[in-house]
């Protein structure tokens, strides 16, 4: 069974500093995608970054980057130069390549950004 685990219910970071959110997943599949979604208090889920499992290179989107360790089934999100607008719930999600629309989500990490 596919599961996604986020072991940090809540984290805090000082504005302009760097924070890393952790995610582990369990799967027997070899082809899959991993995602980080952001859900601000306004509720709309926004895609932050995605990683294809077949790619060894870690994905990067501006201040957001991931550390993808396939063997360890680990997928952490690093936010550099944290901004007040980064405060939100962050969800790690997994999708099997053939099961193309069904996402499995972790329980989320609430990120607080201190001015």
């Amino acid at each position, binding site marked *: 069974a596919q599961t*996604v685990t*986020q072991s940090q219910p809540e984290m805090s970071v000082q504005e302009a500093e760097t924070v890393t959110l952790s995610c582990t997943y369990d799967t027997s599949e070899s082809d899959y995608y991993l995602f980080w*979604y952001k859900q601000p208090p*306004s*509720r*709309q*889920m*926004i*895609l932050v970054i*995605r990683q294809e499992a077949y790619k060894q290179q870690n994905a990067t989107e501006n201040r957001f980057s991931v550390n993808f360790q396939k063997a360890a089934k680990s997928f952490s999100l690093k936010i550099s130069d944290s901004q007040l607008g980064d405060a939100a719930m962050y*969800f790690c*999600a997994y*999708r099997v*390549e*053939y*099961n*193309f*629309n*069904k*996402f*499995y*989500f*972790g*329980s*989320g990490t609430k990120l607080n950004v201190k001015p």
Partner: protein
Amino acid sequence: DAGVTQSPTHLIKTRGQQVTLRCSPKSGHDTVSWYQQALGQGPQFIFQYYEEEERQRGNFPDRFSGHQFPNYSSELNVNALLLGDSALYLCASSLADRDRNEQFFGPGTRLTVL
């Protein structure tokens, strides 16, 4: 280009009642998925519709049903509401093409069952 829209924004029902939630997908998308997000939890997959048929289903009872219309919009129906059905219901749309498959989420409908 309008993104995913959902209606209503909030809804209050009592136990035993029935509710219908609506979703319009992002322009050009043909697949709609529904998720239930309980307070403090991640979204849980309910089911997915493509070509007006339910293609996949999560671990939800038959009280949860849905429909997709020819214009790709979708409805989620919940019968015999229970207190535990109180949650944020999210709709997500995407393209069936697996290589470009990325889900876009709507703002959700907050359902409260009293």
